[in-house]
């Protein structure tokens, strides 16, 4: 059982961004993708989620054997168990966090079944406590006027409430101070489970001190060019991305 990406090619307009990407994340593992700006990391997250701006030109992604691209709408993919914590989450004016997450939880119930409001709030408050989010947060509009740290915590709260099978965290560390980074990482670590796979996309090694990955991949120009254990992240930090590009070129 895994999230399996085979030879994925994707364009935005005429420009190819993903150029034959291969990656398999078995359930129970956390993988990290590191790479320079513009290497295609965020594109990977959006393509998997089904963002309408991107076109998949070749390749296949399976979610525990289910063909992801046979699900045309982003919401079908989400209900099949895929969750993306975005780098820049959207503001939804006037829609409270409580109502928003409730609508998402309700969407996962069989038709005709109503969410039990009491149970829902109990669970919501429990998860909020874990992420050190104050109670009055629930009546604020989704991401509206949030600080960077609040936005990221709100993403992790949604992830915790929706219980996804595969999670992609896109630059979750960006815009976080060290205290917020610790809280968010604790929230993510609490969701580590043999029943769940996670992909952490990041720029910096720092995040991986808190969310320790099983495997680290390096992405260059729309492909995974190097994979290794967590020490690879430290090596990257010490030598910079130019070192990877040289290494790859030498092998080629």
């Amino acid at each position, binding site marked *: 059982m895994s999230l399996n990406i085979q030879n994925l090619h994707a364009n935005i307009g005429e420009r190819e961004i993903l150029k034959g990407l291969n990656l398999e994340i078995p359930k129970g593992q956390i993988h990290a993708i590191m790479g320079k700006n513009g290497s295609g990391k965020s594109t990977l997250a959006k393509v998997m989620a089904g963002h309408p701006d991107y076109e998949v030109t070749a390749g296949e992604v399976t979610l525990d054997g289910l063909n992801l691209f046979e699900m045309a709408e982003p919401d079908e993919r989400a209900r099949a168990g895929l969750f*993306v914590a975005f780098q820049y989450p959207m503001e*939804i004016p006037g*829609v409270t966090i409580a109502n928003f997450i409730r609508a998402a939880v309700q*969407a996962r119930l069989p038709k005709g079944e109503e969410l039990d409001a009491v149970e829902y709030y109990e669970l919501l408050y429990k998860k909020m406590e874990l992420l050190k989010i104050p109670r009055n947060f629930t009546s604020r509009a989704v991401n509206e006027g949030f600080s960077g740290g609040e936005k990221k915590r709100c993403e992790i709260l949604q992830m915790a409430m929706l219980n996804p099978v595969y999670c992609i965290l896109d630059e979750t560390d960006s815009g976080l101070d060290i205290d917020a980074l610790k809280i968010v990482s604790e929230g993510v670590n609490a969701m580590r489970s043999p029943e769940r796979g996670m992909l952490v996309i990041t720029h910096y090694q720092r995040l991986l001190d808190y969310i320790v990955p099983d495997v680290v991949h390096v992405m260059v120009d729309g492909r995974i060019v190097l994979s290794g254990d967590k020490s690879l992240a430290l090596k990257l930090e010490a030598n910079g991305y130019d070192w990877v590009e040289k290494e790859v070129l030498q092998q080629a």
Partner: protein
Amino acid sequence: METKPDLNIDRSIGDFHYDVNYEFDAGIGLSERTIDYIADVKKDPDWIRDFRKDALRKFESMPMPTHWASHDLDNIIFQNIRYYLSQGTQPKRSWDDVPEDVKRTFERLGIPEQERKFLAGVEAQFDSEAAYSNIKAAVGDQGVIFVGSTEGLQKHPEIFRKWFGKVIPTGDNKFSALNSAVFSGGSFIYIPPGVKVKHPLQAYFRINAENFGQFERTLIIADEGSEVMYMEGCTAPKFETSTLHSAVVELVALKGAKIQYITVQNWSANVFNLVTKRGLAHEEAEIKWIDCNIGSRLTMKYPGVIMKGRKARGEVISIALAGDGQHQDTGAKMVHAADDTTSNIVSKSISLGSGRSTYRGLVQIGRHLKGCKNNTECDALLINTESRTDTYPAITVRGKENACQHEASVSKISAEQIFYMQQRGISEGAAMSLAVNGFVNDLVQQFPMEYSVELKRLIDLEMEGSVG
């Protein structure tokens, strides 16, 4: 001539009709004979018969307001309309006495149930006349009068005649003249001094017949220090031909009185809804219109408040939803005619598909006044590029010590927002609904609970219908 397509939006709640035998039918078309027929059936006193005939002459002499309003008005053929249809002029006091064919309509719309749950009184109008009208005994015992306009003018002429046609003169506009000529139904309400009616009074207006015009006339007088909340709802089946609804509503709030008037308009997409609503607020009185327009083909409605007493307050809160083929032309009029008067206008419109919404606002503060304040906010939300929104504010502020503030915004629900919500598992239609409900959320919270739930449900239905 401009015609508009009728698009199939889910209006399952109101879109049904039963065949009914009408005892009284003024026939098709409008003439002095129509007026005499209506006056005879209703046993109008002479002054009302004369009032009607004078109004007919004014109506005939006035041009259509198409020099500023939609040319779709030219599609109303006055000679093809039926102006009066009823099964009798006496409303029943008990649902058991309402004829079966009419009763089942209101039962299907849930009116008797709502009455039991949370209303102080109900009037249910079916085409030209109220089929049912009743007020809870406890409220009636306080001296509150809640009857139809015919009963009001016959049984309470001393109050009725003093205010009738005084807030909105017959010749105010072509459609107020038409209403004054053929009016039937609507409510007459009088709240005695100091009486605060705890629960809302409600009127429900139902059009059942094709090629029909409904012209109810409502007059509400809140005596000194009294308070009342009035709610109206309306539906009609979706016919092939167009239907006309043209009401006149006059409110009078005497010293220190408060009137809240709430409308949830959900006419089917073939109804021309051309309504004149205005209130007169005396010293320290407060009039608040909460106006929600979801249905109709063309709505033109600009509820107003004339603040004629010191420290009077006027407010218009409006929500308009213009779906495919609909035009919601709404707004507010605030006339400050005394010192220290304040008014507030908050208008939110949503346009989707080929729907169009227009805001027209008129605020007047005279030169000799001081201490007056107006705040106007109008926000428009566009769901796709085909839709259109216009704002026409007309603000005249004279005098030195008055303040006026106007803010307007236009926003769109972006593809990125919809994608974000879909990534959480929410379908495109439900995501649209959430965003639209979010947009109007702060206004909906001012509605009584039962109505805000209904409003949310209506928005959900519209949004689901709007996504492929």
